[in-house]
């Protein structure tokens, strides 16, 4: 650290450690409080070590509430949406990048336009279509509208355009059809982009709330976001129930946290598309 003043070093580290503490502390408080009794959560909301350690909140959550149903629904929806987006986004991205067809430019312009429409404007429109197609209050209603996303197609198209055409031409000379080339030559090469789509879709659909609100009302179809949101506004509770709510918040964070830490490097480098609203 030659050339850097000692005071400046102390100042920078001090500032960063303080900021990091502010960012991390809420999550630690969340986990700590979920193991406290309700009385202690109210009396001592800051301490990171529960005075009396109890798993009552988790027992209640997993054994005597609809939480397991919400969790299962979230898993099913997230897996289907992620698989669907990988398939449909890459197919569409490939076609837009490689296959000349009439109206390709217009279609791409439409895609960009769709990306620009704010999500909240689409709440009522989505409900209308879901209702019209008679898939309201059903798994298809939860899943199908999310199966392709404009941003994902955009990412795949950009990636396919960066791959040299020569590889595919070689395969074509060897007699492979377009679909076959796509499946066994192009898609394997697109692995980095596919991983990006997987991460973005996983996080996006696991954390999605508004679509599930407008697509269903049956409690059997609640996902974690919708269920926990109901819990927050007092559905299960008498009193504040903070340990229970915070336990629910902690558990629903675990899957995205795991994905985040596994793919950390890639997420940090490709997060442009993951902007939260």
């Amino acid at each position, binding site marked *: 650290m030659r050339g850097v003043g000692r005071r400046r070093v102390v100042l920078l580290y001090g500032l960063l450690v303080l900021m990091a503490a502010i*960012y991390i502390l809420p999550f630690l408080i969340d986990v700590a409080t979920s193991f406290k009794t309700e009385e202690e959560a109210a009396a001592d909301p800051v301490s990171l070590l529960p005075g009396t350690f109890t798993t009552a909140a988790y027992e209640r959550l997993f054994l005597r509430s609809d939480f397991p149903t919400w969790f299962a629904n979230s898993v099913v929806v997230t897996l289907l949406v992620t698989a669907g987006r990988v398939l449909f986004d890459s197919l569409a991205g490939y*076609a837009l990048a490689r296959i000349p067809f009439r109206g390709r430019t217009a279609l791409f312009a439409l895609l960009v336009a769709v990306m620009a429409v704010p999500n909240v404007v689409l709440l009522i*429109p989505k409900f*209308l*279509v879901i209702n019209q197609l008679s898939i309201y209050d059903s798994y298809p209603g939860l899943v199908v509208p999310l199966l392709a996303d404009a941003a994902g197609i955009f990412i795949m198209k950009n990636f396919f355009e960066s791959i040299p055409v020569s590889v595919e031409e070689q395969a074509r000379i060897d007699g492979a059809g377009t679909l076959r080339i796509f499946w066994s030559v192009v898609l394997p090469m697109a692995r980095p982009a596919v991983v990006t789509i997987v991460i973005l879709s996983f996080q996006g659909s696991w954390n999605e709330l508004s679509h599930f609100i407008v697509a269903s009302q049956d409690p059997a179809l609640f996902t974690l976001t919708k269920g926990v949101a109901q*819990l927050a506004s007092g559905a299960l509770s008498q009193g504040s129930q903070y340990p229970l709510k915070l336990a629910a918040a902690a558990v629903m964070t675990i899957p995205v946290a795991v994905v985040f830490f596994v793919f950390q490097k890639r997420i940090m480098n490709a997060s442009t598309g993951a902007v939260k609203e």
Partner: protein
Amino acid sequence: MVSPAVLLLGTFLAVPVVMALSVSFSDWRGVGSPFGSDVGFVGLENYRSILTGGTLAQRDFGTALRNNAYYVLLVVPLQTALALALAVLVHTRWLRGRGFFRTAFYFPSVTSSVAITVLWLFLFSSSGAVNEILGWVGINGPAWFNDPRGLLHLALGGVGVDQPPAALSENTALGISWWEWLAGPSVAMFALVLMAVFTTSGTFMLLFIAALNNIGEEIDEAGQMDGASSWQRFRHLTLPMLRPTLFTVLTLGLIGTWQVFDQIYTGTQGTPAKTTLTPAYLSFESAFNDQRWGQGAAIAFILFAIIVSLTLVQRWLLRSRT
């Protein structure tokens, strides 16, 4: 090959928008098909009832607009400044543990808004962690999510202005008095402002870090040779080069903050005293809870128009200064 995705996006994005537009011109109440013969065409009636007439619908819309405007005015500058500051700090050449700090600042961005809202309701409850910590330094914290008082009104009260001048209380815009427009964000809304800054600053920090990496160090070193201080180098060398990223961050911030929905649905449902009501939530509530679908759709399209026009204005402002 492109067709499945186009079919999906067309069916669930393009067609719906057109359908909703037609609903916004109708008196559909949620029963039967919105395109059935018993649904009347009412022209601009839904838009008129939101924008004129002094009805409850208009007052709610005015209130929601005011709340969200203050939210945007606070969140966008704060999150942009914080994201930039964090990026510059983390980008420091001789810093160790860079990965740890980046992870810490970015983690809130990947967690669901529902989980963060639940956490925030606890941290900012009247006897919650934030007030406890404020108590350590002798500050008696407010009741946060139960406190509808506007920050600007509180500040004015602090200098002795409790009663509005007649000019402010008598004149109204969008159904609420000028005095109410000047209330500022409520204490409850301010807690949501802090939450937004907490969850989005990490995302935007990454955009700034990527831009800083692209700039490279030669220019900074050249500035150092010429004897410029680190602040001068930042202000006159780095910042101008970050301009495109700054534009992206401000635009994304503007678009995102005008759409606050999840946090309101999960946390406050517009309470206390409608001071956390936002147009996005009001649109949802009018349609899905009150069955006034035409009005809900109309609010959504007005919101859309606001977002598009503000983005264009911002683009024009930032461009004309270069």
